């Protein structure tokens, strides 16, 4: 599977620069995938922010460091929790969808029909979707980070008397360039993983409806696992590139 996925990714990189560029399809998929995932990642982000603040509050209080609560919450959400949680939810929602959709098109010969029509199905179906997931996930991540901060603020207000302006001031003061840029940048990689794994599993599906089910399920499992592995690698890389975050 690894070799197949690697070849598939290489084919994507080869095809993505060859015209015609399916701009309408890319825009359609970006809107569709973004809108489909917006509510679920919003709710998740809000809960994560709220819970992290509630968990950190008593711990920091124990060390007499309650004042650092907005900063600590902000850094953990921006650097790690926002991007990774958003990517995992996105993988569950989108990778399985792409796997099932393309898998179903494969077993019902719709992809063959497209090829017979003189259309390059890889470019029309795969390149457009992977491009869309790669560029929509960073946007969703920024949204999740913002929603999570609202959640965290609500948790803080429950235990401390603090204004939104002061809370955000403390967050912005604590979160550095070296936290925000790598945090959001790695979601381009996560978005690519979600798209390419879903597309690969669906595009190569076989054995009828059973194959479609397998494509959908394994898309989520493989993309989630790859997100966590690449997160580990990218965190190490980030610390090497931006040593200020040490």
């Amino acid at each position, binding site marked *: 599977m690894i070799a197949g996925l690697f070849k598939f990714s290489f084919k994507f990189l080869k095809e993505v620069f060859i015209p015609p560029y399916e701009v309408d399809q890319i825009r359609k998929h970006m809107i569709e995938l973004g809108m489909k995932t917006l509510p679920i990642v919003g709710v998740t982000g809000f809960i994560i922010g709220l819970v992290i603040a509630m968990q950190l509050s008593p711990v920091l209080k124990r060390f007499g460091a309650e004042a650092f609560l907005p900063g600590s919450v902000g850094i953990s959400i921006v650097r790690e929790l926002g991007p990774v949680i958003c990517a995992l939810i996105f993988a569950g929602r989108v990778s399985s969808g792409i796997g099932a959709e393309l898998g*179903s*098109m494969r077993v*019902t*010969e*719709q992809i*063959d*029909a*497209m*090829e*017979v*029509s*003189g*259309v390059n199905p890889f470019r029309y179906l795969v390149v457009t979707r992977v491009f869309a997931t790669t560029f929509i996930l960073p946007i969703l991540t920024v949204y999740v980070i913002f929603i999570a901060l609202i959640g965290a603020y609500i948790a803080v207000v429950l235990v401390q008397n603090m204004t939104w302006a002061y809370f955000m001031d403390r967050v912005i003061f604590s979160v550095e360039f070296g936290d925000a840029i790598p945090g959001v940048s790695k979601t381009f990689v996560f978005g690519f993983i979600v798209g390419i794994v879903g597309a690969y599993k669906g595009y190569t599906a076989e054995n009828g409806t059973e194959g479609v089910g397998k494509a959908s399920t394994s898309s989520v499992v493989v993309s989630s696992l790859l997100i966590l592995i690449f997160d580990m690698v990218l965190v190490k890389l980030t610390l090497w590139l931006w040593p200020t975050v040490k």
Partner: protein
Amino acid sequence: MVEIKDLHKNFDGNVVLDGVSFNVAETENMVVFGRSGTGKSVLLKCMIRLMQPDSGDVIIQGQNIRELKVRELNELRKDIGFLFQGAALYDSMSVKENLEFPLIRNFKLTQIEMDKRVSKVLEAVSLEEAINKMPSELSGGMRKRIGLARSVITNPKLMLYDEPTTGLDPITSKEISSLIIDLEHAFNMTSVVVTHDLLCAKIIADRAIVLSGGKIVAEGDIENLVTSEDPLLKNFFSDEIFEENNGRVQ
């Protein structure tokens, strides 16, 4: 028009096509008979290079399809229509969008010209009212008709049919077969039809071949094949005649 020379194809050592050779003349309707799993669909897919044969040649309009570059292949495919077994309509597109898809991708037509072609083919398959429906709203017979309309909308010179009547009741099956022959005459096409439906073959075929064990075991006029004393053909067609009669009783 079509020349198949010594075509071989195997999957993991399982021989599916074992030296298949035949010709189809211009405007001729050729039917390929055979039991399930005898490589009929594989033959059709090799003819349009959806599958690559292991050896042998497929020559369509004087061009060897195995030697063409992707761009040349796509150019040739504009002259070939393919009706898939399940019609293969694009689920996410309406009937109109399904019909327009090959036109948008391959021809520089104005919206008015496209609308005219869409209306013409929908009229030909008697489904004008389905223009805005989604594939999920269509019955099996309707899907086949729309699939047929999508295949002929580019005015192909050659049509390939993969089991056009499978899964349909005998009456709809007869209707689809008659529709195929009407379209053949209207659009002046050559066709290769893969089927095991004798009724469909009787309506469509000018000539037929029978595939068994990856080889052509008989070739000729459909009536001669059906009445042949060859034990293999007798056995094959007796089952088909039984199914045909059973269909009529129902």
